[in-house]
Structure formats: C-alpha cells, structure tokens
C-alpha cells in the first residue's frame, strides 16, 4: 500500500470521491476513462486489488471482492450521444438507468433496461449482465450492447464492437464485458440499441403462465410469482384486446412489475425454459418466501431467510443436471459457494481473465472458479 499511497496522493488526489461510503483505502472517481486506466495501470504495477462501484445496488453479486481501491463511475455520468432517428444511444457508465429511460421516453423509446433495478447505473447493469423482464420480447441486455469502451486491468483504454445496429467487425468484446462483474476492467462508455415503446401496454393476471406463453404471440413477459401469474402485453389497443380474449383475465393498463426480491438470501435458478415449473417447486421446497419466475426465459429468482445446506446442494445438483445452474446473488453470510460447478471452459476463461487483468487486481475471485 505504501507505493500506492504515495502514487495516489500525488496523481489521484483530485479523483478522490468523498461521496460514497465504502470501506476501502481509496475511493476515486475518475472524470474520464483515461484517468480510470491510469489508476488501473498503477494498481496493476503495485499488485493492489481494485473494485468498481456504480450505485451499489448489486454489490452482492459474486460476493464482495476485497479491494483497497474502489473506482466509482460517479463522474462518468453523461448521455454522450442519443440518436433517436437511429434508435441508438451512447452513454457513460455512471448514468442511472432511470435517468436514461426518462430522457429517451420523450421519443417513446426504451433501452429495455431492468424495470425494477431502482437506482442502478448503466455500467453496473451491464457489468452484472442483468436483463429486464421484457427480454422475452426484446432479447437480453447483452444483445443490445453494440459497442463498449473500457479501461482494461492492465491500464489501457480499449474499444470493442461498432456503434451501429449490425456488425461483424472483429471479436465480440461487448458481449465479453457484459456480465464480467468488473473482473476484466472498468466499463466506461457503451452504445446501446434502443426500441420503441409499444403504443399501449397492459398487465393481465392469468391462471396458467406456461399455457399463456404458448397461446399468444410475443408477449413482453410472462411471469409466475408468489403473488400470482401475469402476462405483459404491448401494441395497438385492438391487438391487446384480441390477445386478452385469448388468455382470459382482466387487463390493467400499463406494465405493473412485481416488487423486486429482497431478503437476506437471494438465489437464482437459471434453467432452460421447459424446467421453469420444476425450478419453482424446488424454490418453494427450499423455503422461498417470495419468488419470480420468467417463463420462456428460464430464470427463477427467490428470496429466503435462510437455507438448509443439504437441501441447497440437492437443488443445485438438480439444476446442474438439467444443464442449468443455481446461483446465489446475496448470500446473507451463509458462505455458500455462489456459482457451483465451474463451466467446462474454465481454463480458457482463466486465460481470458489473464488477458485483460494480467496482475489479477480487478475484483479478484468474483467470477466462477475463484477467478
């Protein structure tokens, strides 16, 4: 720390971020990605662990890595270039998703970011690789990240992808960084593909979510939750009316999403779509107080007070036997391994980690297999 302390004092004092309450030796808020790269270069040289902070809404994902330096995206907070007539936007990582969505709704557009991730930043959502419920209709977040500009662990600013809606130009770095949990470096700027909001939308409470999914054409989302099952529809009014006739139930205007899962312990089954009903049963068996299942996607998120380690292990074994996983997104101090069996490609994954973070300083241990 001595080296870093002196280096940081001199070089990075003006980046110091006093606004965020995090337990770390230094909290710095670079004003540009070049500054972030300089911090990472210095940290790499001194082998000092670094983590990244957006709004702190997903600090539990993958466990909190021990870090002496925390780099925040507080000062990377500009909407750089919104091209409404191209349905794209370039935005810095520290912009809150509500800030972006409330700006672009002026032209009835949406970045289809997670609907209930209140306070989260763009950079945080992309680093965590999370998608909204409307991925059933519009695909996952990673399919809309057209270009990324990142500061690598080794301290260089690197761009990948292309700022246009369609590209086959070089390796897919935007997808690599999406979901990398800050283990490869810091995401600074992204270009996102946008969609138009449907003219009207409705939420319909239904009896059988699985049947509804098979019975209607391209709903926005089909959720089965501990509070009931819902189909989310978008489009022209006559179109919604006709779809409602097919599924039955009373439509409520607008999209009414379930309250996000809270609770000391949060888990996620990620299984192929046909296993959703079985995953719901498993979640109930584990003692879930609340759960939200995405039909057609395969994600079943559940909140628990605590869990029996053996029951959890059995549920994980089941999930992995179907080709899926059972991951812990908030562990409540249980110490349960968050990811389960590492993927078959773990050796290549380690080499990818080493490519972008050769000194192993970026959120060490946050990825599967202790990467």
């Amino acid at each position, binding site marked *: 720390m001595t080296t870093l302390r002196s280096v940081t004092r001199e070089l990075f004092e003006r980046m110091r971020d006093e606004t965020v309450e995090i337990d770390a030796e230094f909290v710095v808020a670079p004003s540009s990605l070049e500054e972030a790269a300089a911090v990472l270069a210095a940290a*790499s040289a001194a082998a000092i662990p670094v983590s990244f902070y957006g709004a702190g809404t997903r600090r539990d994902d993958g466990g909190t890595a021990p870090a002496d330096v925390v780099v925040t995206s507080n000062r990377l907070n500009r909407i750089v270039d919104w*091209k*409404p*007539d191209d*349905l*794209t936007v370039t935005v810095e990582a520290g912009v809150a998703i509500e800030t972006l969505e409330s700006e672009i709704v002026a*032209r009835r*557009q949406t970045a289809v970011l997670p609907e209930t991730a209140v306070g989260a930043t763009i950079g945080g959502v992309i680093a965590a690789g999370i*998608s909204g419920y409307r991925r059933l209709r519009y*695909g996952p977040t*990673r399919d809309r990240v057209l270009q990324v500009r990142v500061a690598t662990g*080794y*301290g*260089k*600013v*690197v*761009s*990948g992808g*292309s*700022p*246009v*809606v*369609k*590209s*086959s*130009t*070089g*390796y897919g*770095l935007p*997808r*690599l960084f*999406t*979901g990398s949990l800050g283990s490869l470096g810091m995401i600074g700027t992204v270009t996102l593909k946008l*969609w138009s909001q449907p003219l009207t939308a409705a939420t319909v409470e239904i009896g059988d979510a699985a049947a509804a999914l098979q019975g209607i054409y391209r709903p926005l989302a089909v959720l089965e939750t501990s509070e009931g099952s819902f189909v989310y529809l978008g*489009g*022209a009014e*006559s*179109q919604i009316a006709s779809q409602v006739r097919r599924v039955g139930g009373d439509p409520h205007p607008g999209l009414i999403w379930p309250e996000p899962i809270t609770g000391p312990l949060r888990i996620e089954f*990620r*299984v*192929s*779509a*046909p296993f959703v009903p079985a995953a719901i049963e498993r979640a109930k068996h584990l003692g879930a107080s609340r759960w939200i299942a995405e039909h057609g996607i*395969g*994600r079943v998120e559940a909140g628990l007070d605590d869990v029996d380690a053996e029951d959890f292990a059995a549920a994980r074994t089941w999930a992995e036997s179907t*080709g899926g996983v059972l*991951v812990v997104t908030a562990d409540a101090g249980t110490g349960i391994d968050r*990811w*389960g069996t590492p*993927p*078959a*490609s773990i050796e*290549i*994954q380690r080499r*990818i980690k080493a*490519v*972008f973070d050769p000194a192993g300083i970026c959120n060490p241990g946050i*990825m*599967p*297999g202790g990467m």
Partner: protein
Amino acid sequence: MRWGYDDGMDLAARLIELLGATRVHTHPIDRLIYAKDSGVSSGDPAIVVLPETTEEVAAIVRMAAGADMPIVARGAGTGLAGGAVPASGSVLVVLTRMNAIYDVDEIGRTAWVGPGVINLDLSDALVDQDLHFAPDPSSQQSSTIGGNVGTNAGGPHCLAEGSTIAHVLGVEIVTVDGDIMVLGGAAPDPPGYDLRGLIVGSEGTLGIVTRVLVRLTENPPDVVTMLISFDGIGDAARTVSDIIGSGLVPAALEMMDGPMIEAVENFVHAGLPVGAGAVLLAEVVGHPAGIAAEADLIREIAVANAATDIRTATDEDERALLWKGRKSAFGAVAQAAPDYYLNDTVVPRTRFVEVLDEICAIADRYDLRLLNVFHAGDGNFHPLISFDASEQGMSEKVVAASHEMVHAAIAAGGTLSGEHGIGIEKRDLMSRVFSVDDLDAQARVREAFDPEGLLNPGKILPEGSRCFDRPAT
C-alpha cells in the same frame, strides 16, 4: 518453415487411416475445388478432410496441430470476405457432412444442429412445429449454420430479430488442443465469461464449431409484404430514414436501385417495376390488428416521400415471388457480367442518405457500373460493382473504389462489415476502425484460445496487431 512436404504426406496417410480415403483429399484438382470461398481471394490447402463427427474433428485437429499445420474450417464456402480461404499448406476441415438436426425442443424453442446444416433446410424442417431460424442471409439456400456462426451472418429479417449471435444460445467447439467443450447453453446467463459471444463471428479463428444450439422463432400469425416504387433513389432512402425515425422497426426493409431492379427482373421475372429509380421491399409481421396499422404508417411515409406505386402481396405465392426477386440479386448480377465485387458496410441510419449519395459519386468518378441492393433498415450497404476482370487495370480500379466506399462509411460513423465478416478482404482496413490498443486486445483474446495461431491464420486481424509492451506487473 513450419511444415514440410514429408510431414504433409505423413499426416495425410494418418488422416486416411482415420477417415478413409474418400474423405481425405490431397490431389491438386480436389484442392483447387476448395481453394476459394465466394470472394476474390484464393489459397492452397495441403489436405482437405471431411469429418462426420465431433470426435473426428478433434482427432484431425490434434494431428494437424501436432504437425504444426494451420487448420481452417469451412462450410459451404458462400462467404464473400475470404474467411474460409485456406491458408497455404493448411488442413482444410470441410464440415458440410455434419448436417444432422437433433434435439428439437418445441416448448423451449431450441434445437441442436450440426454446423453443416443448410440454413434454409433448418427452417424447412421446422414447418410443422410453426418455428423457424430467424437469420436469413441471401445465401440461405446454400450457406450452412456453421458458416453463419463464423461470420455472424445477417439477412433481411435481422432488422427486427438481430443477427446470428442473437439466435445462437450455445456452441460445441473443438479447441486447438483437440478438446471438446460446450460454451453457453439453453439456460439463460451462464456464469462466467460469454465465450459463446466471442465464438460467433470469429471466423474459425478461436475453435472449430461442431454443434450449434440455435434459438428458434415462432412463425408470425400474419404478414404484410409491400413493394414500394420510387422515381429517385433519394426518395426511397428518405422513406427508410423516416420509417426508422418514426420508431417502427419493420421485420424487413430492403432496397434495390434502378440498375439492380433491371438486372433482377431480367433474371427472375418477379414483376418488378423496370424503369423505377428504386424499390423498397417492406415487411411487417405479427398480430393482424397490429401490423395493419404498421403497414398503413409505412404507406403514409412512402407517399409523403413521393412513392409512385405500392404493391401489397395478396397471398403467400406473391410474397415468395417478391422475396425471390430480392434474394436472387447476386445471381442476377453474376449472369449480367463476368465479375462482381460486393461490399458490406454499415452506417448509422441517420447518415444513410448522404452516404448513399457519396457511394454513387465514387462509382461515377471511377466510371464503374454500380448496382445497389441493401438492408436499408439496418443502414447496411451492399454496393455491388459489376465488371470484367480481364480488362486491363480493372480489378485494381474496383478495389480502389470499394475502399473509398468503405472509408465514406467509416467517416460517417459506420463500420467495416455488417454481416460478411472481415476475413482477408477487410483485414488490413481494421486499423481504420480500431486503435493499436483495440487491435492488441483482440489479438490477446485470440491468443487465449490459440496461442500458436494455427486456427485460420491471416484472417480478421492485420499482421502486427499484437503489441508486446505488456506492462510490468
């Protein structure tokens, strides 16, 4: 020298032992057959092999890598950027025999398929399930799913559905070490890095794809297909911009200019308006109530931009005929002139009209015959120069003009390739869109998969991409 004649012969004998003599080719004539894809470059493989199983591919890769020979994977060879052109002295792995469709999951809407499955055959096989594979490159009657994965292929319907990458959930690959592994899968958001996302579009440089888990798309309940004619190409281009600007993303929004209309009509007789300056082929799909309104909006915008005629397909036969016109464009041109050079660039859709003007001006300046057919809704240009390569200096002129067109697209904030890939053709243009540090990072990614650079060498990244100034740690 990396490999020698004797090594090559020895390897061939061992490959024959593995695959049998009918699936290993070393004769110059056989090698010539596989020397090219559909682009302009060619190479000379030492050995051509046709495996039928993943295990055979793994054994081939182990043997070839053991002999330090480059390994190039290939599908049907319809690529236009040279991605499947064999490196000299390479082992060319032709995957067309691995063409089984297995494990169709109707509820989860997925299927595992071999890389040799022909794109259109997959959708045809799913008719009874009311499903299809959404990426539909114009080559779909002959291109393979493995090739589509290699180039992250597009097609007209990628406008609303996204390119191949959005429809590939997982891949089984053989690594350069001969290991077999699955990346991704049917479950969402697998933990770890999205290596599947790296493989798609990597043109066989990171591993050989031996099976693909594809996402299937339900067939829409209703379709409206319209052919809209204009006197001037600018009117058509403005119509495209206004449609996207309205927030409507049609299922497809394709454009052909006057010279292309004429060439296509002479070839397929689809009833295209010969003499028109440009046509748009616009398609909306979905719920009948929704798409009627969308089709009306498109017609309104077209009329406001001086459309001269709007023809709406009245049945599936007419729709198929209109699409046949669009998808036969390259065949039509091939019939009209001995050679053609097809480019593939993308610009922000807000810059579409001006870049189109510039592309036409470049062709005029070089006195070249230009035909335009493109995925207008995506801002994806396919300017096509028709020429006779036997004319003195002509090929050089065509390449020079094409490069200027690419530069015009980049200057407008665009990129090198929308769907054909980089291959050999655009490799040396990569530094136009990526910095030294960007290319270095990509070269490092490649090394993570293939440290010796044996897999499809000389593609995508220009020579010298790798910087060796890794900071001391």
